[in-house]
């Protein structure tokens, strides 16, 4: 039960994340006698057992932290077998599909299981995820991971091409998620999977042509409240920025005009205030305007996919 937030001590068989640095985590299954190589040197699994999640661990050449996996951290560290969904889209899917403990969900395809983990966290322990993947090895790998992560009871992994063969579920799910090349071909089967009381559907597609056809089909099949959206996370880095002040008094020694100077840092860490004061001493307080600035990333992912949501109700 590695993902269970009530678990605090590392044990054999647990999946843990070795936190090396920002956005850099190694997923490791703790096994007796095993050793793991990190850039800070070897980590002996036996030494991790009994430690509390969140503790700092001394490696030969630096510190690492042992973290309990969460679906969000897992998304950042999981072994990629396919293109994956990230937390911004995943959050929207889980929220817009009205998921809560007890919900029953159908997902196609499973892919690398990035979304599946977030769904499972939300619907456990009484809900169920029926997930479908047309690639045999991927579906087996996903099944192993879900078992490893303590989700065995809540998930059924099926190796099947939903596009050709359908979900084969008879009005048992609250929500359907489609991440398929031709989602419009699966709407009939999705509709049959959704409970007679009604439910929600989501389709994720990178291309607008896919969205167009999907929406036409949803409308033809009497889905309502069809909404298509896009959401992107904009991350900020914290920087100490300095801007040169210009003097308006005549005959003052003209200061070298420098372009705005920014101290960029890798993890957006904030430098100690002593660094600033030493700079201040050099130029004098009034000549430089200093401030902490939240700077958006210069480059960011501009597109992941369109999310289309729809409601099915029977009157």
């Amino acid at each position: 039960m590695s993902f269970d937030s009530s678990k605090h001590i590392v044990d054999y068989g647990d999946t843990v994340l070795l936190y090396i640095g920002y956005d850099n985590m190694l997923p490791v299954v703790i096994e007796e006698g095993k050793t793991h190589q990190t850039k800070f040197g070897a980590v002996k699994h036996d030494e991790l057992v009994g430690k509390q999640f969140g503790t700092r661990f001394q490696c030969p050449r630096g510190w690492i932290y042992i973290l309990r996996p969460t679906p969000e951290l897992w998304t950042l560290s999981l072994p990629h077998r396919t293109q994956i969904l990230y937390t911004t889209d995943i959050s929207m899917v889980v929220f817009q599909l009205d998921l809560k403990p007890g919900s029953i969900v159908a997902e196609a395809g499973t892919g690398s299981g990035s979304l599946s983990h977030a769904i499972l966290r939300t619907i456990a322990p009484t809900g169920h995820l029926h997930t479908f993947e047309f690639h045999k090895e991927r579906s087996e790998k996903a099944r192993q991971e879900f078992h490893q992560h303590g989700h065995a009871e809540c998930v059924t992994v099926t190796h099947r091409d939903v596009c050709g063969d359908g979900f084969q579920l008879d009005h048992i799910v609250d929500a359907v998620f489609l991440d398929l090349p031709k989602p419009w071909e699966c709407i009939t089967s999705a509709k049959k999977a959704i409970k007679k009381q009604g439910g929600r559907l989501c389709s994720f597609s990178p291309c607008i042509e896919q969205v167009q056809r999907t929406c036409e089909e949803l409308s033809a099949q009497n889905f309502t409240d069809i909404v298509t959206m896009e959401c992107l996370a904009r991350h900020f880095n914290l920087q100490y920025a300095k801007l040169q002040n210009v003097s308006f008094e005549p005959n003052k020694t003209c200061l070298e005009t420098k372009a705005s100077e920014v101290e960029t840092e890798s993890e957006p860490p904030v430098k100690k205030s002593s660094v600033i004061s030493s700079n201040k001493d050099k130029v004098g307080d009034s000549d430089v305007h200093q401030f902490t600035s939240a700077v958006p990333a210069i480059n960011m992912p501009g597109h992941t996919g369109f999310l289309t949501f729809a409601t099915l109700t029977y009157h």
Partner: protein
Amino acid sequence: MEHELVKEGDQVVFHREGWSRVFQIRKKRQVYLDKTKLDVDALIGQPYGSTFEVDRGKLVKVEAAAAKQLAIGETSSDPGMDNRNLLDLDSNQRMSKEDIMKMKDEGATGQKIIEELIENSETFKMKTEFSQAKYLKKKKKKHIPVFTVMRPTPRLVMDIFSKDPAKICYLRGDSLSQLLSYSNVMYGSRVGVVDTCQGLVLACLLQRIGDAGKIVQLIPNSTNAVCRQVMDYLGFPKFLDNVYSFPLDELSLLNDETHNLSPGSETCGNTETTSVCETSAAAEQLEETTSDTERSEGHGQGSLISNGNNGAATQNSEEAMDNTETLDSEMPGEIVDADKTDTEVKVGEKRLLGPNRERQRQQREERQREAGEIMKEKLDSLVLACKYNPTPILMQMLTFLHPSSSVVVYCQHLEPLVECYTRVKENHAGLQLKLSETWYREYQILPQRTHPKINMSGTGGYLFTFITSQRSSD
């Protein structure tokens, strides 16, 4: 059973695209919808998912096929080519506002009014097919009020605030969804939360912890009533065993205990603490926070509305009622009007409370003591989504979190989160620090007319998230 039916006492969402209202279904209850008075009796026994039209003050069920017809604008057979001959003249529409009002008074249906409008329009026939569809859609929205009856979910309930997002601190669906993800709250979680979003965040978290988890809602001080209106909307009962409140001005007391006294000590039941918290610098910071709060609440965002939703809040309702009534009057009228009956009920409760005050005070102290115990055993997640300055609250609360716990701070402004970030970093209190906002856009998807929606939201607030780590002092 294939269909769930609307029962008396249910909280029901009246929903149409991007718009929701929630009403509790009671016999003989009248509600206002678009300034029309309605009896909601007719909904009892109807299946959820049914669509209704408001026809001259009555609810008329719309069958599935007809509902679809209403949603899609059917167009006339012979549309114009383009708009080269269209002139922008007042005389284009021969019907005046008075004519329409007269028709309505005479009891004409919305459909009839629209037919007349088209009949009397000089330009309708010359418009292009797409333009006609758009015109029809607009007129239908105005003259044929149609809505679907749904069970409340956080997604639908959020739409209630679409006209007045200040009430939920400008929290947008995408921000709320990420807040819920990054908090890692799941069935059985133990969560600390500060919520001045009408209980929206609290209610969402409560839904996710199920009946096994525990939530401690942190409130500025014990005389403060908290608004948990959204809990009502989502059909949660007035009192829940696993939801506690704990006043922030008594945190330092818990801290002292953790450091100086043996665990499990009973002394934290004491609620007469005003003198105690003045001793530490931290408490002073908190007092600043509180006064900030009072100032911002003075602006009439209505955050102090006491619904008497749980033990603690009910006790306070008498003290809070004085504040509440003035604030109520400053609230945008819509919801207040509709819920007038609720207010009356509340006043009734208040009178009943009098004789039981001593017993209830003891009960509250006991609950607060339990909340303290939960926090001392440490929490799995912390969520702040409030109008208070988050940094002092966050720094105080870090002691009550396990290492490897998830923390989310939502704020409508960026600057306070910059401060949070800096402090957490300086104290080496967390890993994987992320400060972000979300860009969110909706699309119109129609044959030949697909494009981003003309209007989009400019901000959905900011999120600061991190994972707690073992602190160097530990």
